């Protein structure tokens, strides 16, 4: 892993740390799940994206993960409430 790499277009890497690509906020080690350091919010699907997302069915949420500093939306996940978070991590090369 190098500073050229990112975890995603919204989460960058600096000296081995995951950081918000917009403001540089530290999100923990890039080799660990960064979402644990993000602000998480679960929105019922029906309220997530306008009427087209209202399926008439309960139990599905759109998870948002925000930068705790600048509130940038870093990632989303479609999820049933009980399902675990999806984690993306980089490995240290060596």
């Amino acid at each position, binding site marked *: *892993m*190098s500073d*050229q*790499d*990112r*975890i*995603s*277009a*919204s*989460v960058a890497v600096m000296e081995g740390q995951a950081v918000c690509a917009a403001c540089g906020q530290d999100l923990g080690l890039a080799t660990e799940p960064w979402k644990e350091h993000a*602000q*998480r*919010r679960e929105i019922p*699907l029906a309220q*997530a*994206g*306008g*009427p*087209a*997302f209202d*399926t*008439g*069915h309960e139990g*599905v949420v*759109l998870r*948002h*993960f*925000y930068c*705790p500093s*600048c*509130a*940038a*939306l*870093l*990632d*989303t*996940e*479609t*999820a*049933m409430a009980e*399902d675990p978070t*999806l*984690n*993306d*991590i*980089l*490995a*240290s*090369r060596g």
Partner: protein
Amino acid sequence: MDPMTFSIIRHRLFRIVDEAVITLKHVSGSAITNEGHDLMVSLYRADGTLLMGGVGFLHHLTSAAEACKSIIRRFEGDIHEGDIFLLNDPYTAALHTSDIYLVSPIHHEGRLVAWSACFVHVYDIGAVNPGGFAPQAPDIYTEGFSSPGIRLVSGGEMRQDVLDTILNMVRSPEMVTLDLRSMIACNNVARDRMQSLMTKYGAEEVDTACAELVRQSEDLFRARLSELPDGQWQSRQYLDVNGVTARVNLTMTKREDRLIFDFSGSDPQSPYSINCTKWASLGGLFAPLFPLLCYDITWNEGVLRPVEMIAPEGSIVNCTRPAPVSVATVGAIQSVNNAACSTIGKMLGASEKYRDQSTAVWHANHFAIFKFGRNQKGSESIGILTETFAGAGGARSFADGVEIGGEIPNPISRMANVETVEAAFPVRYLFRRRAPDSGGPGEFRGGTGGELALVPHKAPDGGIHYVISGKGARHPMSEGLAGGYPGAPNSYVWIKAPEDGANAPVTAAGGLDAIPGTQERVSWGVYPLMGRDALYVRWNGGGGHGDPIVRDPDAVCRDVAAGLVTAQSAGDIYGVVLNDGAVDETETQAKRKGIRSARLAQEAAE
């Protein structure tokens, strides 16, 4: 070998696949093959490994390789020049029974030197429901005829008893005959052209070039993987059938020049026919891998070698007999496509060099709807709603997804004109257009999907019926990237005409809610489209890329003007305030600031 001769042989191998595809389309003449491009032709080496894959439904490239290999195992010592074998058993290699493989050995001077294989989605396979997708099938036994390998043509002669037996088990045997004939002609062209290539350059020289081609692909792909960061990316897909939700979980790990797709944690196989076998899963993950990672590398065995798949037995992505699988291609396989597209998109997005190649998930959910019944000319017809091939593009790291832009696993599909459908079936469209808010919001928006409504029109029997294997009406499946939202889910609505006897709607420019009657969601099974009722279908948009509140406000304004985004979503999701059709910059800034504080305030409250 001499690089010029290599270059010539390589070019010719591509053209051989092209010529075979042309032959397949010509002889078949069916709409699903010619318009939907629901086909595939590829060449294999003597041991059945993939040599050259064409542009067709890409999830077949690896399964057809397995079909070759299983024919080699089953018929070892009994494979002769001019033979053609048929295989459509999903537990052997096929994706589902209606996608029939015809596999043909290619001999040169008496020696087995290569294989060609092709498939089309045949008109019917004799499953419990017409058209091949069988939502009412409880097991593989009710999904029609299936064979783990049978000799259809022996030494150039059709085995009439075998053909008659197959045709005896299907609806519309004439149409299936044409499908089979087209595949035979296709394999014959591939064989003849391969033989003349070998006559011109020598079998040894051609085989050396083939080995070199595979080696090059492997080297190029490994080199590309080495350039990408090491890491682990996850994705998840939900498939809902009749109120039951199944999960496909994927963890993709990249280490140096290897890639591992691990589906551990996926749900057990379903009682419904959305399951897929392991060969189908392997095909499913390669379908996005080829165009996303290997767009400039020849698609062959070399690309397969650095990739490993783990799929737990008895799960929805590696089901065991007799689980039903007829809806696999638009069920678990498509979910594997999507899950792989998502993790590959994430990995590409993690690389400075390849970020422009990353994409959110495209059109994640086919709505397989087969219309059937007596048409206005009095003949019985079966036909797929080709709008499902219209798809929607996922957003990219640099641009919006393409509106109604197709799908990754089948890059060159088309949908039929409204006039073509209305001429063939006794129905009338009320509208067909891009569906507002269907594209996943993001800094770059997912491409919109579409919506349509149909009513019966001058139907001799008062209407028709349709088989629907619709999923994705409860969960969005076109996942976004880097903060982009998923595309909106599918929607299938049966509008039952009001009891008061009001006439069927003649037009409904206002959309679904302008159609009089009560709305009932449907998704799985056989339903009528009769009398004054209507059917509404909305198909999913592509996933978005990036945070919607940093999208260029002018782009949002244009989307609203074009009807692609509603004014409400422009405000709520994009934080853009419009005044008289123009962006109010001050209000927009304030609105976006407000959204940011609300995001963190929400957190503080929790």
